[in-house]
């Protein structure tokens, strides 16, 4: 499915999200991705289902702690296996209560990525089968990659 038609569908999902949501095409050379979609946390599963139908592969799930704006950002990188185009889905969640629905039902590969993001940032992925620490010791209750983590 051509990227543009996919973008229109994603835009539909994104538009009913918060104001600055929207699907914008970006140049691969500059940002390393062909399309960026900012979606509300609730709509992540819908956007991901669209991408799954289009044959995308989950590359990575990155958590970012924007301490200044008191927000956490979750960045999903998807790559189309056939052509190598990359679509990036972004969501912002309040830092105090970071909750994002899990996509491990659609992409089993995302299971570990989400557990890792939970380890480092404390982002709770609702509906995740087993969200206990993956890389950190079993009883770890600290989240090292948070900006206010006193390492």
């Amino acid at each position, binding site marked *: 499915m051509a990227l543009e038609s996919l973008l229109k569908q994603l835009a539909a999902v994104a538009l009913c999200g918060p104001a600055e949501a929207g699907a914008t095409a970006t140049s*691969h*050379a*500059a*940002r*390393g*991705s062909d399309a960026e979609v900012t979606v509300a946390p609730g709509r992540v599963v819908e956007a991901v289902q669209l991408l799954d139908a289009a*044959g*995308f*592969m*989950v*590359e*990575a799930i*990155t958590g*970012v*702690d924007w301490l200044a704006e008191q927000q956490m950002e979750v*960045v999903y*990188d998807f*790559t189309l*296996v*056939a*052509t*190598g185009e*990359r679509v*990036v889905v972004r969501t912002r969640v309040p830092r105090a209560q970071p909750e994002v629905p899990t996509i491990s039902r659609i*992409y*089993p*590969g*995302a*299971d*570990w990525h989400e557990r890792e993001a939970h380890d*480092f940032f404390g982002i709770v992925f609702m509906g995740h089968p087993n969200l206990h*620490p*993956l*890389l*950190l*010791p079993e009883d770890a209750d600290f989240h*090292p*990659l948070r900006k206010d983590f006193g*390492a």
Partner: protein
Amino acid sequence: MSTTAQSLHEEMFVLNLGPQHPATHGVLRIKLMMDGEYIADAESVIGYGHRMQEKMGENRTYAKFLPNTGRMDYVAAMFNTHGYVCAVEKLAGLRVPERAEYIRVITAELNRVASHLLWLGAFLIDLGGFTPLLYTFDDREQILDLLEGLTGTRLTYCYYRFGGVCNDVDDAFLAGSRQFVARMRARMPMYHALITKNIIFRKRCEEIGPITAEQCRKYGATGPVIRGSGVAYDVRKAEPYGAYPQLDFNVPVYPQGDCLARYMVRLDEIVESLRLVEQALDRLPGGPVMAEKVPRLLKPPKGDCYFNVESARGSFGVRLFSDGTDKAYRLKLRSPCFSNLSLFRECSRGMLLADALALLGSLDLIIPDIDR
């Protein structure tokens, strides 16, 4: 199809393919729920070698993180440094001179051949054959000597810099590389005769550990694993970077998706890499190896970007967030073995222990690359 456990009896026992086991090639523990010799469930416990590289990326300046990149996937260290360096160059807008791009291709492809040779030896040991390991290590030593002559270290090269490479190629390296390419090409028929055509090896690998293209896509497995399942996804072709667009090479793909397919993909990749090295050597342009005015303390502008490199084990990606200071705001390192291992649980259900180890060996895992 390979034998699978039809009915799961009740007395299952947990066997620890422990953190210290000959077949895991590193500190990886797999909790196997065993029903007799068949595996009911395989839960991988990772994190034994976790050093929090991503936090180190945040509290070090960009240049000071360079030695860390070589310590993740130390068998193919060039690719990690290549990914990190290109991500920072993309953000900072540095242009790398032509000669440095070609040197990066030569050293990266030599490193890929060395990594595949090490994998070939280790994979054969997992299947019980000890002799091929010595032959592959004999070849690999040639590459390590070449790269040691060029960069000064054997494994964890810290050779690339932002904007180029740290020191230029000398004639000994160029002559040595050409001689190695010729010698390695002469050795390939011997490997095929000794291993590929061996009936015991084929019986151990054919139809063992089948991975479908859909499973690869769902789990994000890349590199020889996905190319062994019939999908021609190679980052050098999908998202061309460096000097790869000017060089012509094809991507070996095998549709069967079993251990033998992944084995054949890697052997053909060695031949392709040799072709790449030869072309790059022929077309090596003159000129500087470092961009002109690279600031000593690099401060890339605010923003984020993602850069993907085709490492020996799959696509190694770096997502870099910078806030204009001299340290990265957030550095995400996407390691290929992390996703490749995640599909082991689903693929090893119902397999025999010996076959599951053949599957684990064919995934070519480097544990520090998983744990970061």
